[in-house]
């Protein structure tokens, strides 16, 4: 058998299969995913999923019949163990082999695991997969105190969810501010205030010594290095991920913190592509190689790959964007703010509706918005078009920013 084989059923893998058919590709498509579930969406896992009553079905990208109708083969519950580039074949964990014309690596990321005493106790969890969230869900009823390790998006989104569910939540942050890799100190402080308003206890400079056992293999408490003992029946570690490049490295594809791809998302093997969290590419907005862990990046790269495989002209030049939901705050980020020289604010923090417009010299490079989605949408167009509004236009909330780029 030949055709396209897609490794991974997350946003990038699913999108690639879908976009191949939309682009008119009529060869065989096989999507292989180790998890054993129909491809599903991960973003809600740390956000709305535990608060919704719609259940797991609402996470699915598509029902089974969609894949059948579009002749997309699914091999679920099987991992690919090797890529044999010379034979253009992949090998599965049941020793089956699949031939390919084009191979798409959408292997995503691997959880960073806690490495401390007590990490394997019952009640210590992570959030990346459906199985992870089922595990957490199964512990929620008997949880009064939740301790969350980490100060990034997953940790804080789960803090928000757990607080909404009435749990007493403590967040342990190793550094001195939350979301330190994603936003500027002003926004970190604003979000910290929001968490405080919801009764979440956030501790900075917190180093975990160990997780204590109740004598029956369950979590009972978290002990910090300064001696503090925090009762906990559930410990969630949101301490980041690393690119899952194992297969690519073994196949001797060019990798360094990600599978290196060109503007068509091609690896150094012209028949192998990579998309999503595990792909590293030269980002035109920063002028350097980066790897992004976001839905936008996964979806847009997958679409480019599908178009290229279908023989169309395409390249990946999208402006990066992200979002996070915490309490009633919708945080949206577009562009890359690193290296900014100054910023202007639109709207007011007191109203919980404001945006920060980041400039490098006289060029708009990023916008971070809180509950101002129209600024975000306008920002995507502005940054893509290279149009920079003036300080007066930004600060005048009645000025329509999208009027600068209306088609």
């Amino acid at each position: 058998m030949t055709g396209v084989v897609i490794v991974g059923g997350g946003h990038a893998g699913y999108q690639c299969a879908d976009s191949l058919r939309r682009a008119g590709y009529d060869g065989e498509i096989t999507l292989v995913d180790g998890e054993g579930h129909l491809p599903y969406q991960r973003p809600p896992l740390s956000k709305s999923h535990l608060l919704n009553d719609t259940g797991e079905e609402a996470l699915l990208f598509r029902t089974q019949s969609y894949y059948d109708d579009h002749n997309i083969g699914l091999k679920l519950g099987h991992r690919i163990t090797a890529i044999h580039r010379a034979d253009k074949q992949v090998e599965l964990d049941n020793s089956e082999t699949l031939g390919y014309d084009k191979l798409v690596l959408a292997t995503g990321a691997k959880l960073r695991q806690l490495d401390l005493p007590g990490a394997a106790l019952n009640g210590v969890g992570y959030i990346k997969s459906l199985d992870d969230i089922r595990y957490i869900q199964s512990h929620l009823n008997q949880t009064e105190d939740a301790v969350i390790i980490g100060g990034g998006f997953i940790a804080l989104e789960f803090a928000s969810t757990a607080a909404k569910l009435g749990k007493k939540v403590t967040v342990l942050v190793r550094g001195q501010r939350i979301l330190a890799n994603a936003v500027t100190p002003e926004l970190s402080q604003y979000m910290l205030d929001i968490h405080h308003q919801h009764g979440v206890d956030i501790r900075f400079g917190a180093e975990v010594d160990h997780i204590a056992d109740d004598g029956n293999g369950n979590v009972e408490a978290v002990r910090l290095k300064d001696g503090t003992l925090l009762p906990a029946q559930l410990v969630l570690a949101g301490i980041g991920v690393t690119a899952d490049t194992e297969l690519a490295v073994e196949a001797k594809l060019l990798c360094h913190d990600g599978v290196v791809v060109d503007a068509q998302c091609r690896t150094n093997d012209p028949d192998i592509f990579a998309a999503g969290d595990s792909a590293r590419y030269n980002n035109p907005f920063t002028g350097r190689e980066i790897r992004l862990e976001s839905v936008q990046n996964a979806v847009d790269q997958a679409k480019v790959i599908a178009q290229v495989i279908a023989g169309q002209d395409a390249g990946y030049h999208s402006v990066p964007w992200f979002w996070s939901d915490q309490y009633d705050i919708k945080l949206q980020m577009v562009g890359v703010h690193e290296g900014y020289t100054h910023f202007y604010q639109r709207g007011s923090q007191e109203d919980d509706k404001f945006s920060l417009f980041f400039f490098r010299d006289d060029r708009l490079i990023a916008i971070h918005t809180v509950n101002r989605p129209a600024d975000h949408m306008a920002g995507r167009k502005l940054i893509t078009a290279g149009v920079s509004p003036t300080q007066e236009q930004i600060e005048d909330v009645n000025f329509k920013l999208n009027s600068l780029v209306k088609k």
Partner: protein
Amino acid sequence: MPTVNYVSFDGQSTQLELAEGMTIMQGAVMNGVEGIEGECSGSCACATCHCYVDDAWLAKLPEMSENEDEMLDDTASERKPNSRLSCQIKASAELDGIVIHMPEEQE
């Protein structure tokens, strides 16, 4: 289960039965009804699930949030008085039979 009628831009109609609480966007996307994208998984963050709700049903819809209102100012297809984001509308007995018209483009 409540029924939702999706009408594509070129007039093709698809009828689906959705579980209560499932959003109009989820119903369309999961079942492969084209014309609604829903890139952000229903988080009211991408404006790619824009739809036009048939006038007969407009009054029965839940009120629009400020966020949705703002997002609708930036849809790919023209905003009309009956524009909504379909990720913000849940299937329910009250909306049984609702008719949803798809816009020409989402992005």
